[in-house]
């Protein structure tokens, strides 16, 4: 077994032994329970929903609006929970473990520091990918059970969601090379918050047709591609909606005005690669 896999297995064992999964499972079930109730209530109430005096959006449009909004909410919750999990698994991976004296006995072993970093990444990204995939699938099933509709696209948004979580894990690991545990945690959640604000700005900019606001939002999405990937996932849910329903979805609190593009996905991959290289070089040069 390679050194990276040994480290990855050790890290996964830690999450199991420390009952991280038990806590995550309980909170996740709580989230899914609330989401199930919310979905059932939303579809039950849509018959009374008036949109434009029954004019521009018919019953199908309202059902589509409800479905996509719930999916957006579900994906938002999934990303948030996976982010919390991913950040807490990695925020002290280098600086924190070095401060506590956990890292030194491992680093002096005949494995490269890069391998150690890769091992920690594989463990955290693997756990978070599995988690967000299961959560995403649960959200889809719950919405389908409540409203009888599947989103137009399933694989693409799921892949974008996994990409967003993977980038967040890479960013947290990168931060752990240069920042203390507390500073890294604060930084990660502030960046996550900045991403959310960026998404809201995009919606506001699109609603008001304010190009400057849209440009700012676009630039933030470039700087924080996890947000762009999240928006791409949510935007894809409404790709088959038409007319006012689609506009309403895109402008809603759990909609997204920005679609993904090949160039953006490539940039996200490059961004991930840059984070990995900077983390590896920073760790190689760091005194422990």
């Amino acid at each position: 077994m390679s050194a990276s896999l040994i480290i990855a297995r050790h890290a996964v064992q830690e999450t199991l032994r420390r009952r991280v999964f038990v806590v995550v499972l309980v909170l996740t079930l709580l989230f899914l329970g609330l989401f199930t109730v919310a979905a059932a209530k939303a579809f039950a109430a849509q018959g009374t929903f008036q949109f434009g005096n029954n004019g521009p959006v018919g019953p199908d449009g309202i059902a589509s609006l409800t479905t996509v909004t719930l999916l957006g909410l579900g994906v938002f919750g999934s990303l948030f929970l996976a982010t919390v999990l991913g950040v807490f698994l990695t925020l002290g991976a280098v600086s924190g473990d070095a401060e506590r004296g956990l890292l030194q006995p491992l680093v002096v072993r005949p494995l490269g520091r890069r391998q150690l970093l890769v091992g920690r990444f594989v463990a955290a990204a693997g756990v978070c990918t599995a988690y967000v995939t299961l959560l995403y699938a649960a959200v889809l099933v719950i919405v389908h059970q409540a409203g009888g509709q599947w989103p137009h696209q399933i694989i693409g948004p799921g892949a974008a969601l996994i990409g967003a979580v993977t980038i967040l894990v890479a960013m947290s690991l990168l931060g752990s090379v240069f920042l203390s545990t507390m500073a890294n945690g604060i930084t990660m959640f502030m960046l996550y918050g900045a991403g959310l604000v960026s998404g809201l700005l995009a919606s506001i900019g699109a609603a008001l047709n304010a190009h400057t606001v849209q440009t700012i939002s676009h630039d933030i999405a470039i700087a924080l591609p996890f947000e762009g990937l999240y928006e791409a996932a949510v935007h894809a849910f409404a790709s088959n909606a038409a007319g006012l329903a689609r506009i309403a979805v895109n402008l809603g609190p759990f909609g997204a005005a920005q679609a993904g593009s090949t160039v953006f996905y490539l940039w996200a991959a490059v961004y991930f690669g840059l984070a990995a290289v900077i983390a590896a070089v920073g760790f190689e040069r760091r005194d422990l």
Partner: protein
Amino acid sequence: MSEQLTTQTGSEREIDDAAIPGPALVAEGLEKRYGSVVALAGVDVAVAPGELVGLVGANGAGKSTLMKIACGLVRPTAGSVAVFGAPAGSLEARRSLGYLAELFRFPGWCTASEVLALHQQLAGSAGGRAEREELLELVGLSDAADRRVEGMSKGMQQRLGIAQALIGDPKLLLLDEPTSALDPGGRRDVRRLLLGLRDRGIAVLLNSHLLGELERVCDRVVILAAGRILTAGRPDELTQTGGVEIQTGDGVRRFPNAARKDIPALVAELVAAGVDVYEVSVIRSTLEDVYLHALEDE
């Protein structure tokens, strides 16, 4: 703690000289600065296979930094360290050494056996369960193999740290304060262990504030202050005679300028004078005296 490593005498050492290329550790012109703080200011140290060298110095003298550079945790500002000819920090160098950090911790959720198993895998040791059991017995933790680290005392964790450092049969052992958390019995056990390792041809660089320990076990002692070597040598070279003390029927008589060679004449003189002589001892300065004296001179 088992004494199985202490049974060999020096004459029974089986060191395959051909298999050990040159000195275990060579540091040349080693410098390390942390910003404006100078941790090491040009240190030259060598440790031969089967040699036990002690590092002495006040806090901040550079002892731990020297060890960290030797095992690749810290990069030197200038100079170099080679471990069996390989640059410190290289994979080849790390394959040859075992290290116990001054401030270390193992994951609290792991058992002692799991800690050793992890390090076996990372070190590429094929020793398996037999090696783990042997090492745990060696450090007196046979009964704690399945105990979680978080349930161990500091002394037990330090013993586990020593066992961890010995995984894979390293040719060079770097021990930074290995007895700081141990009780007197534990320190005696570590002394025996170190002597046994030396007899097996393992080079040991030992950092400790316990000068009495170093004086008892080390072949050579290096005294560091402010990142420089103040003095170095065999303990018996560094410690000097401070006269002769003779217990007589009239009380203790001291001869501060006398040396060992003067004892027969002194005793003969006293006996001829009708004085009863009960005990004769040569007064030697301790390593602590030497160390404090060296610091005062500095």
